[in-house]
């Protein structure tokens, strides 16, 4: 029982640190990567709070699809910037 408490504290601290890094990092692509890893941490949080349905959904959508949408936006923009 005590081990789960420690895991909870580690996950909570990591969530806050990753969110802070995502907001404050200068490079946009690094910020998106921090958001993705934060989403992975929140999956562990959902599993610790006994919500397997939400954990599966967040693992597929939060760290897969949303990250890819951000990356595609940045990629298309970088190409236009080269042309100009």
């Amino acid at each position, binding site marked *: 029982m005590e081990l789960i408490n420690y895991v909870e504290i580690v996950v909570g601290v990591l969530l806050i640190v990753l969110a802070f890094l995502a*907001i404050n990092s200068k490079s946009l692509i690094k910020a998106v990567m921090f958001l993705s890893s934060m989403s992975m941490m929140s999956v562990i949080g959902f599993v610790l*709070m006994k919500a397997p349905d939400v954990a599966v959904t967040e693992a597929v959508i939060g760290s897969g*699809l949303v990250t890819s949408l951000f990356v595609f936006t940045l990629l298309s923009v970088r190409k236009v910037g080269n042309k100009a």
Partner: protein
Amino acid sequence: MLQYAAIVLIMLGLYGILTQRNVIKIILSLNIMEIGLNLFIISVGYVTDGIAPIMTTNHNTNSLIYVDPLPQALVLTAIVIGVGTTALGLAIAKNIYSKYGTFELDEMEEE
């Protein structure tokens, strides 16, 4: 304690929306706030030593102590709506870039 971490995440997301001057960063802060809210709503229904709300051969009656399933159902739909709003916001950001050539709000006003 995950509930307090969720509240701090909501505060961090609001701070990001208020201070950032980049369109992508604003959408990103909105996502952080959404993750914090989802964690908070799930934490409302958590019961210590509760069982995940799925009946299996090991947990086979309804008289056991289950975790509250209602917040989980609400969050399940909220996550999918979140990807829709994020995609719409990113589409608007892409159109902004094709018009002004930048994501920074301060540089747009100069043109």
